[in-house]
């Protein structure tokens, strides 16, 4: 057990626990805060994999911006027991089945990774090694080999932004 292993198990436990708490908590504000904790734990995993840029962008974008907006909306809606809509039992069943299917497919992927492909079978994850996640390398890669998809996605963001402004102006 070295430091990386200890951190890995700690972060994994934290991720799973807080992800469960997102679903279990009754209060939507608590759910959002647990979700923020999930993002922090996942960022910790990225740092362990030496993907520092990804880790910090995950925090800035998800924990710092998107979740704040979530919190904004939920706080203003003032959700509580009285205003909660009665959910149809069939929706719950359908949700459980859909979630179960997703869980099965994820389990399948993990299982295949363990037994199927020879390349990755029984190999530990490269912890704290590799340099592709560092910002310089990532930037060079994005702006040389993947410049077209990168620019297209930026156009997508721009159009989303323009759309948001237009929708906001109408009201």
């Amino acid at each position, binding site marked *: 057990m070295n430091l990386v292993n200890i951190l890995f198990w700690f972060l994994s436990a934290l991720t799973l626990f807080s992800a469960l708490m997102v679903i279990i908590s009754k209060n939507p504000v608590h759910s959002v805060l647990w979700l923020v904790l999930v993002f922090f734990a996942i960022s910790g995993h990225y740092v362990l994999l030496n993907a520092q840029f990804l880790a910090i962008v995950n925090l800035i974008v998800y924990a710092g911006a998107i979740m*704040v907006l979530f919190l904004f909306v939920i706080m203003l809606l003032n959700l509580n027991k009285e205003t909660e809509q009665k959910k149809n039992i069939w929706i719950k069943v359908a949700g459980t089945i859909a979630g179960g299917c997703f869980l099965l497919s994820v389990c399948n992927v993990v299982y295949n990774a363990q037994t199927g492909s020879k390349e990755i079978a029984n190999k530990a994850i490269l912890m704290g090694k590799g340099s592709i996640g560092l*910002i310089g390398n990532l930037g060079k890669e994005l702006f040389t080999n993947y410049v077209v998809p990168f620019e297209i996605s930026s156009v997508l963001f721009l159009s989303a932004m323009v759309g948001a402004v237009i929708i906001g102006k109408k009201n």
Partner: protein
Amino acid sequence: MNIYLLAIDWWFIIEKLVLIALIVTLCLIIAMYETYGERKVAAFIQDRIGPNRAGPFGILQPLADGGKLFFKEEIIPLASSKYLFVLGPTLAMITALLTSAVIPWGTSLEIGDRNVPLQVADVNIGVLYIFAVVSVGVYGIMIGAWSSNNKFSLLSGLRAASQMISYELAMGLALIAVLMMSGSLQMSVIVNKQMSGALGGLGSWNIWYQPLGFLVFFTCALAECNRTPFDLPEAESELNFGYHQEYSSMKLGFYLFAEYINMFMSCILMATLFFGGYDIPFVNESNLAAHIGQNWVALLSFICLLAKAFFLVFVFMWIRWTVPRFRFDQLMHLGWKKLIPLALVNMIITAALILWLKS
């Protein structure tokens, strides 16, 4: 003399823990005396004397204030959400202190055969780390405001959040120009770049090349710290007291304290990014180290960084006691329609100049 247990270099951990403890203590003490400084500056500007009863020149005033806050009755409103009510000020404090992790506080020390850098973590995304901490800093205020279950608190929390999100953008854009000049996000590299110029480093400070960027950054820093003229989350005349209205005792103290730590941190950050960090002007650090030893240079450079930061803190206070508060729509107007285009123009000019000079 490295000790390895569980494959962990314990000296490294001890060294970092001591450094963290020292930095946190330093931040807290400085935040304490910022409150004193604020009152003295306010008094000076308004032609008064200011606090002068506790100790000589009133320098024990912060202790008296802190003691008073500790002895106040602690009230948790019945209708509040208990855990979150406590979590709010805690988060505000933690996020305020977290920024200090990537700041280079001085040149490295030599203790025995170890070279101890005065920086907790020299990560290669230092600037982005600060952004992450700043953007997470909203939570302390928002959680506290919501869990108080008070209309005024909630309103003020929403104001604070929207203000901080809006000004983060312009701040980031202003920073990109600085990053393009230094070519790295690593704080130590940014500082080292500024130490190599003429006049012992003074000539290469980023402020000379990025005056507009600094202006935008400074304005945004004022807004991020909720300082006048952008202290709308605490506009007493409109919101009674602001997001910490329901708080009492040291929980209120934490909120107020976190604000002063934020102020100190953003001044340190501005000193690091624009004023050469711990660079001692007119002095070549490596020559000096050969004469008086590495450790003394570290101390001097640390004092230099603090002096720069204290000057900026003074400017913050100066602004607070001379400029009146904005209206909220004016604030949004300034942030979105003035500062962001200005920062964008600054960024494009910088990029063009860098390309032109390189070719």
